[in-house]
C-alpha cells in the first residue's frame, strides 16, 4: 500500500471514530513544473510540491465537504473534530445517498511516463524546443505560451472500505505565435506521455497560422458557415460537458434542463463521448471519487442525448445508476472525445460557399444557460472561405448564437483529431475540425 492510501484510510477511520456515519478521503499529491513563456523567453519557472486532502463527511444525512491543503496532519485531525460539531448544526441534505459498495477496479495501464517524470526536474530543453520550432517559420516575430509537466498521485479511501491508488503523468502545452502587424496563431496539446513530435506539431501549427493570418481585412458580421477548429469546438465542448452533469442541470445552468435521455439535441452527425479510459488524454482515471469504475459512454450519440453524468447521489435522486463520474457533489466529465468524420480539412473547406475558418476563441459567456444564448470572441487566425477555398485572412468577429442551434447545425466533421487542453479548454478534449452551417456572428457597432 502506498503511504497516501494509508493516510487516507486513517483519516476515514478517524472520522468514523469521532462520530461521523460515513466518510471518504481523497489525497492528491503532485509534483509539477511549469515554464511560462513570453516574448520567446521564459517569464517564470514555477514548481509545486503539493498535498491536497479532500474529505467527505456525513452525519445523520448531513453532508460536509472539506478541501484542505494542510501544513500538517494534526491540522486535518483537528478539523475533523470541529466539523462534527458543525455537522450537527446543518440540515439533512436532499442529495444524500449512501456511499457505494467498493468495486474491483480495472486499472488503466501506462498512465505514467518516465520521460515526463524526468522532465519535471529540468524542462528547459522542452521549453527551448517549442520556442525554436515556432521560430523555424522565419516570419514569426515572437511566441508566448507554456509547458506544464505533472506527476500526480491520487489515493481514495471510503468508509465502505474502498482503498484505491492511481498515479499518472501529464503534459499540457500551448503556444501563441505573432507575426508582423496583425498575424497571430495559437495551438495547444494535452498528453499523458512525452511526445516531442506532438509538441513540435503544436508549435508549427501556431506559427503557420500566425504567418498566414497577416494583413487581415475587415468583414461584415452576419450569418456564416463556420469551420470551428479543435481549439474552438473544444472550448464549446467544455460547456456542453459541464452542462451534461446532473448537478449543473439541478442548479439551473444547463441547456439540458428540459431534456431527457433520448431527446434529439444535436445534428445526427455529432457524437460526444465521455472517455475516462482513453490513456492518451490527461483526464483519464480508472475510478471516480466514490470508488466506482469509470467507463466510456456517449453523452450525445448521433445527435441524441444519451447520458446525463451522475454520481451516486444525483443518480439516486434521478432513480438511475451512477455513471462513474463522481465528484462527491458535482458529477464531472473526464475526457471529451468527438467521433471524427471522414473529411480532410480541405474537403470541409470545399463544402463552404461563403464562410469562415475560425482557429481560436476565448471569453465565452452566456446570457442564459438554460436557453444556451451565448457569445464568444474569436482571436488569432480567421480566414474567409469563398466558393470552397480560403480567400483571405480576416479580422475578428464574435460568434453570437444559441448552443442548441449550433449543435443542430453541425454539418460535417474532419477525420483528423487533435488532443487539446489549455486555458480555455479545461477538460482534455479530442476533436476534429467541424463545419457548422448558418451561425450568427456580430461585431462592435461603434
Amino acid at each position, binding site marked *: 500500500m502506498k503511504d497516501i492510501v494509508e493516510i487516507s484510510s486513517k483519516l476515514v477511520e478517524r472520522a468514523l471514530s469521532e462520530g461521523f456515519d460515513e466518510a471518504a478521503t481523497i489525497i492528491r499529491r503532485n509534483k509539477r513544473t511549469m515554464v511560462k513563456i513570453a516574448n520567446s523567453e521564459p517569464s517564470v519557472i514555477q514548481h509545486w510540491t503539493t498535498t491536497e486532502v479532500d474529505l467527505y463527511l456525513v452525519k445523520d444525512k448531513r453532508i460536509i465537504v472539506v478541501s484542505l491543503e494542510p501544513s500538517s496532519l494534526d491540522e486535518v485531525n483537528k478539523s475533523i473534530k470541529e466539523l462534527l460539531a458543525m455537522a450537527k*448544526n446543518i440540515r439533512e441534505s436532499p442529495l444524500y445517498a449512501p456511499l457505494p459498495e467498493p468495486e474491483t477496479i480495472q486499472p488503466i495501464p501506462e498512465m505514467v511516463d518516465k520521460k515526463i517524470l524526468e522532465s519535471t526536474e529540468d524542462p528547459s530543453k522542452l521549453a527551448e524546443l517549442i*520556442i525554436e520550432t515556432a521560430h523555424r517559420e522565419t516570419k514569426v516575430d515572437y511566441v508566448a505560451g507554456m509547458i506544464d509537466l505533472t506527476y500526480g498521485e491520487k489515493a481514495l479511501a471510503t468508509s465502505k472500505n474502498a482503498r484505491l491508488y492511481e498515479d499518472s503523468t501529464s503534459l499540457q502545452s500551448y503556444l501563441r505565435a505573432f507575426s508582423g502587424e496583425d498575424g497571430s496563431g495559437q495551438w495547444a496539446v494535452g498528453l499523458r506521455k512525452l511526445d516531442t513530435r506532438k509538441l513540435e506539431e503544436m508549435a508549427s501549427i501556431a506559427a503557420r497560422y500566425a504567418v498566414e493570418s497577416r494583413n487581415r481585412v475587415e468583414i461584415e458580421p452576419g450569418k456564416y458557415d463556420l469551420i470551428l477548429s479543435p481549439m474552438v469546438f473544444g472550448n464549446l465542448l467544455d460547456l456542453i460537458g459541464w452542462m451534461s452533469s446532473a448537478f449543473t442541470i439541478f442548479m439551473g445552468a444547463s441547456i439540458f434542463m428540459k431534456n431527457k435521455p433520448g431527446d434529439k439535441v444535436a445534428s445526427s452527425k455529432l457524437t460526444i463521448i465521455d472517455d475516462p479510459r482513453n490513456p492518451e488524454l490527461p483526464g483519464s482515471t480508472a475510478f471516480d471519487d466514490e470508488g466506482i469504475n469509470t467507463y466510456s459512454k456517449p453523452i450525445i450519440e448521433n445527435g441524441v442525448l444519451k447520458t446525463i453524468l451522475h454520481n451516486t447521489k444525483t443518480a439516486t435522486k434521478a432513480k438511475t445508476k451512477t455513471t462513474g463520474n463522481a465528484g462527491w457533489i458535482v458529477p464531472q466529465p473526464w475526457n471529451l472525445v468527438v467521433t471524427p468524420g471522414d473529411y480532410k480539412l480541405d474537403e470541409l473547406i470545399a463544402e463552404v460557399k461563403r464562410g469562415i475558418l475560425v482557429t481560436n476563441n476565448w471569453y465565452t459567456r452566456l446570457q442564459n444557460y438554460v436557453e444556451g444564448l451565448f457569445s464568444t470572441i474569436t482571436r488569432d487566425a480567421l480566414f474567409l472561405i469563398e466558393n470552397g477555398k480560403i480567400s483571405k485572412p480576416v479580422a475578428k468577429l464574435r460568434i453570437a448564437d444559441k448552443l442548441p442551434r449550433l449543435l443542430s447545425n453541425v454539418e460535417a466533421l474532419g477525420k483528423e483529431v487533435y488532443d487539446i487542453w489549455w486555458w480555455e479548454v479545461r477538460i482534455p478534449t479530442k476533436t476534429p475540425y467541424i463545419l457548422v452551417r448558418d451561425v450568427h456572428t456580430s461585431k462592435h*457597432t461603434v
Partner: protein
Amino acid sequence: MGVVGLEYEDLVLYAVDYARNLGAKYAEARHHKKTGFEVFSRNGVVLGAGKIISEGIGVRVLVDGALGFSSANKLDKESIRNIVERAFIQAKAHSKLMKKPIEFADARVGRATYGVVEKKPFDRVSIDEKLKLHEEFWKAASGSVKEAKVAVFFAEYIESIEEKIVANSDGAFIRSRIPRIRIEYNLVVDHPQKGTLQRFEEYGASGGIEWLYEWKISEELEKNTKKYEEVLLKAKEPPKEEIDVIVGSEVVGLIVHESCGHPSEADRILGREAAQAGKSFIKPGMLGERIGNENATVIDDPTIPGSYGFYLYDDEGVPARPRYLYREGIIYEHLHNRWTAKIYGVESNAAARAMDYKSEPIIRMANTYLKPGDYSFEELIEDIKKGVYIKSYMEWNIDDIRWSQRYVGLEAYLIENGELKVYVRNPVLELTTKAFYSKIDALGKELRFYAGTCGKGEPAQGVPVWFGGPDVRLRKIRLGVAPR
C-alpha cells in the same frame, strides 16, 4: 497570532536568507493561509456545507535574470530548503534562455502589520442563522412571481479569512489579515410559453456579517425577481435606430474593469500574458495619449475601506495607493509591479497580488471605478427623447487586446421623452473602448460598487475585486439584439 505565527515568521525569513545565500539576487517568501466556510442550497434547501483550509509558503527568486517560483504546504525547514533550492536551480537552468534578463525596480518597501476588523465576526452568528438566510432568500425570490415560477434558486454563502506574512530581501515584512464575506446566487425564472430568464449575482466585501445588513439581499430579491418576471413576459425588442443609452453603474463597473483596468496592466502591455488573456491595445509609449473625453477618469484603489479588493501593501511589500489609470480621457498611469516598474523607469504602484501560497504575485486590479459626476438619475434621462437604460447584464466579453467588447442587458428599459417605459429584451451594447470613453456625455453622482472574482495568470488565479461607477449617459449608440 501566538507561537504558531512566530514559527512561520521564522520560516519566511529563513527562506529569504537561504535563497540569498545560494546566490539569488532577489528573494521573497510568503506564508499564506486561507480558511473558509460555505453553505450551498437549492430552492431554500441546504444541500451541504464546505470548509476550506489552504496554507503554505511560496518562494520567489531572481537568479541570473530568470525568475523562479516554488511552493510547499509542508512547513518545516527541510521542506522550505527544498523549495528554495528548486526555485533557485530551475531559474538558473532557464537563465540561458533569457534574452532580456529580468530586473526589479527599487522600492520603498514596508514593515507593517495591518488587518480588517469585522464589526460582527463570523463566529458571532450561529450556523443556524446562516442556514436560515438561504430559506429567506428563497422565500423572497419565489414568493414575488405570479405567472411565471422560480424554477431554480441556487445560493452560496461564503465566509473566509486570508492571512499573510510577506518578507523579501529588500527588507519588506508585512503581516496582514483580511476577512471577507460573499453571497452568490443563480436564479432561473421560468414560464411555460415565454421560456426562461436567468440572473447570476454576486455580493462581496471585506469585513464580517455586518455586510448582510447593508446588502438587504432578501429585499432586493423580492423587488428584482418581480421585475425579472416582467422582463420575461413583457419585454420588447430594443430600438434599431441610433439612440441615447444610459449605462447602469453595474455595467459601467464591468466596462471599466475590462476596458481600462485590464489593458492598463503593464505586464500585459509587455506581453507576459500574451498566450493567456492576451495583450493590450495600449502599447509601450502610449502614456499621455487620449482614449476618451474629459468625463473619462478611471481609478483603481486598493485602499477603499470595506472593499472586496482591499489591501494596504502588495505581495512585493510595496505600499498601496490609488492609481489614476485614465485621467480626464488621457491614458495616465499603468498598474505596475517591480519588474514592469523597472522597464518603465518608475516606482511600482503596488499591483502585485497572489491568490494563495501556490501562486506567484502578478499584476492585478483591486477596486476599479469610473469617477462619478453630479447628475441625478432624473437629470440623466430628462432630455432623452428615445433611449434605453441598461441596468444589469448577464453575457459579456471583450477581445484579447481589450478593444472590442459586448454587454447584453438583462433588466433594461425603453426611455421615451425623459421617462422609463416598457422593458427591453436582451439589448446588446457592442462597442470599442475608445467609443465608450469618448461618448460619455454625463455622469451620475452616485458611485456604486459590485463584487467579482477576476481571473488571470497561468495557473489561473482568481482574486477578489470590486468594480464600480455611476450611471452614465452615452449619446448616439446603435444597440444590437441577441439572436432569438
